[in-house]
């Protein structure tokens, strides 16, 4: 399977740090809910640089998840274009999007979405198996501080531990971009900080471009850049002079 995927490879590997990874222009997304049309995104322009740590802030319904899903190849915009490196995502078909997610994107979700029938290590292996140059699953789990819990099933792990397994699973294939949708949304304060520390460490040590969406403004302090969305538009863009350590965040 891996060979077949490699032969059909269409997208080149990661860009050097600082180079643009994503270039979105005029993105718009409209959902049809029965009779009415609901605009979720309107005329969004966005560039993401390699290695950048970006936080998307906004209340629910502001369009941040829609934007993340389009970047992750889970959803297609109604109009506009998204370029990932040299590749136009908006023109990709289902098969190409699957390959794109498989090779370049790591996802972390609010509700972890682990496979309950697989242990921590096996959940990571599930992804490294698909990957060309993966980390050792055990190493990925050590990276998130779970080196001792390799053979535990999700049901035997706390929420924070489950989320860290999800992060290990996302980063183990060395993705070009890590997309996190409310990664601390289901966690308490202490556990949430622990997870953020792991994300910060991955970004720092592996140089993975990281996008986190949250409605928790306090998290913005740890980002290189903060984008605030409202009603489907980017209403504010801010660069932090220095990234705060997750441990220093308070909310």
């Amino acid at each position, binding site marked *: 399977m891996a060979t077949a995927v490699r032969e059909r490879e269409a997208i080149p590997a990661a860009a050097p740090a600082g180079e643009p990874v994503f270039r979105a222009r005029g993105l718009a997304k409209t959902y049809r809910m029965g009779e009415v049309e609901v605009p979720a995104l309107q005329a969004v322009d966005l560039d993401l640089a390699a290695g950048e740590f970006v936080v998307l802030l906004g209340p629910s319904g502001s369009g941040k998840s829609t934007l993340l899903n389009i970047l*992750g190849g889970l959803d297609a915009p109604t109009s506009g274009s998204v370029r990932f490196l040299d590749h136009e995502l908006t023109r990709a078909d289902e*098969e190409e999007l*699957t390959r794109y997610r498989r090779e370049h994107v790591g*996802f972390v979700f609010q*509700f972890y*979405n682990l496979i*309950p029938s697989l242990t921590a290590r096996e959940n990571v292996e599930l992804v490294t198996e*698909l990957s060309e140059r993966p980390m050792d699953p055990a190493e990925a789990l050590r990276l998130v501080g779970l080196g001792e819990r390799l053979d535990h*099933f999700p*049901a035997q792990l706390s929420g924070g531990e489950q989320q860290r397994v999800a992060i290990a699973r996302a980063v183990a294939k060395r993705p070009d971009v890590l997309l996190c949708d409310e990664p601390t949304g289901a966690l308490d304060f202490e556990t949430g900080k622990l997870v953020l520390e792991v994300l910060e460490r991955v970004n720092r040590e592996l140089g993975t471009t990281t996008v986190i969406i949250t409605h928790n403004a306090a998290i913005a302090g740890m980002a290189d850049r903060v984008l605030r969305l409202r009603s489907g538009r980017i209403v504010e863009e801010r660069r932090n002079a220095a990234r705060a350590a997750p441990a220093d965040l308070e909310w």
Partner: protein
Amino acid sequence: MSPLDRKLLRDLAHLWGQMTAVALVVTCGVGMFVTLRSMHRYLQKTQAGYYEQYRFAEVFAQLKRAPLPVASRIAALPEVAAAEPRIVMDVLLDVPGLPEPATGRLVSIPRDRRPALNDLHLRRGRWIAGRDEALVSEAFARANRLEIGDTVGAVIHGRWQRLRIVGLALSPEYIYEIRGAGDVFPDNHRFGVIWMAYGDLAAAFDLEGAFNDLVLTLAPGASESAVLGRLDRELARYGGVGAYGREDHVSHRFVSDEIAETRVTSVVIPAIFLGVTAFLLHIVMSRLVATQRDQIAVLKAFGYSDSAVGGHFLKLALAPALAGAAAGSAVGLWFAVGLARVYARFYQFPVLRYEPEPGIVGLAVLIGGGAALFGAWDAARRAMALPPAEAMRPEAPARFHKGWLERLAGPGLASPETRILLRNLERRPWKSLLSVLGVALAGAIVVLGWYAFDAIQYMKNVQFRAVQREDVTVVLREPSSSAVRHALAGLPGVLRVEPFRMVAARLRNGHRSYRTTLQGIDPRGELRRVVDRGFRRHDLPPDGVLLTARLAERLDVRPGDRLTVEVLEGARPVREVMVAGVADEMIGMSAYLELGDLNRLMREGGTVSGAWLAVDPPARDDLYARLKRLPAVAGVGVREAALRGFESTIAESFRLSISTLIGFACVISFGVIYNGARIALSERGRELASLRILGFSRAEVASMLLGEQALLTLAALPLGASLGFAVCALLAFRFESDLFRLPLAVSAQTYLYAFLTVAASALASGLAVRRRLDRLDLVEVLKTRE
């Protein structure tokens, strides 16, 4: 409409695929129930009414010849209510358009009144009035396209006579119109009953003032066995061959067996379908309660009572069951009409109009609803017991472990995909087992459906290829010297003659006895063999008698035991013989001896009753023409013709019911597998969507879900085959009667068809689920908790 009921309708619409599958299975089960139950009631009522209205006799006796006053004396016995002396004779008939001779059973009736017993139902035409006028059985007339006013030729006591048909009739004595024990299926072309005036027959057979057949009814409270014994003693010196009651009356026996059979099948087969219904609803409703935990919580939080919530889920289960019951009742009543038409081909009843009974439909709806409630009860109970606060929280994550299946698969096989699959199976072993059982049951029913074809095919092969190898059977009017074989050999086209001897006798072992025919066969014969259900040929033992297994059971004897033989013909000797062997034959309760042994037992020289002939095909019609006019010949059987008759009657008549069963089996098969796959999709949709997001392709994700279903189906195949064989064995055992036994012969083809049906159902279900899997909304899944 209350909001809860509106939710019910929406849920039904949402689950329409699974609900339709449930409704279809109920339709099949209820349809079968209504059809078979209706037929049971219909046959039972028709038989009872017919017997009563037409005064069907209770005791029957055949003899050689007795003067009429003997009958009057018997009729005057206090144990006897009524008696009717008759003349009954088999003759050869020349039927226009039929090359081979047919056998006509001439039965005497009074010209000036209706018979006191075994009255006729005059279907068309009029009662006999003049000389040589005859009433012909309707089935025989229909098969041979005989009309009122037509004539048939008959050799009556050596004289060629033409009988004029004045009416078509039915008799309670010949509802199942076959020659006698040994025949299994009616052949209306070549056997028919003809009623003629007593005077005509008495004159023709030199029986003036005499009779050779007596039927009677018993006075209230009289003991049948006492009357049988009395009759045997009275009639012995008039050549009585043994009196018997209704239990041993061939037609009565066949009809009664069929009635008993419909009763059993009307319970067994619907029970399987309704069991599957309960199983399907159990799975569907359990899953529904699990996914609607939060809704249950909200309902309860806002004040809906536990019973309202439980009732809501029970109603949801009742909906497809009642819809299925309604459809099944309609289908069942419709099939009943078709089946009544099939029965009309086999059973000659005067009332053929089948009237649906509303009570059966009511019962069917109750049973269908009951199965639904039974299946949904557990889920509804859980919904009722769920405390609202707990219901608000998601269900605890499923616990998994590494199980034995995985260790069995070994480290080499254990990719994460394999592990997911195996651990899912092992997490709920009972559910996996039930799914396997459900699919296996579906396969078993397919096997059962095709087995009916196999059994008929097998019977045909054994009977017409292995047992009967002659072309023509000739039965002589009187036992004759073995020199008759030379006369037969001289007939046109005859290549080989093998004589046989048939003797009426009562076999006795202690208090057990059975009236049958001793068959003397040439042990080196080629044209007739004893072949058992396993297709094994049994050589005739040189000393002693070979019994069919059923007869040996009835008499409770084993090889080596001794039997008393009371011969009911000629000098009526009583002898001891040894049971030399038992053959598990399919048809009848026969006793075989070597021809020479039987002659010695009878203290007669080389006497024969008839012969089997091998005939050169081109000369066949010449031979038939000669046989039709030979006075010494009482009956002629033609194997090819019998085979054709078998094929046209049986194959056509059974096709409807067997095809129906097979169709229903396919529905079960699809219902079970489709539901299993849909539930699996519902339970694991979120997990599979996560895998899709992680970069697994549609095909990979589908193979993970469908792999599990495939594995379950695969495991079900051998179980289904064994279960199918067991059900066939049960059926063969159930169908075992004195008249015939069903062979337990399930062909490889039947298993193949069952495999293909199950595989096709699995494939269709897989495709349906795959389509849903492809449309899985990845974004939506991430927004919701389990």
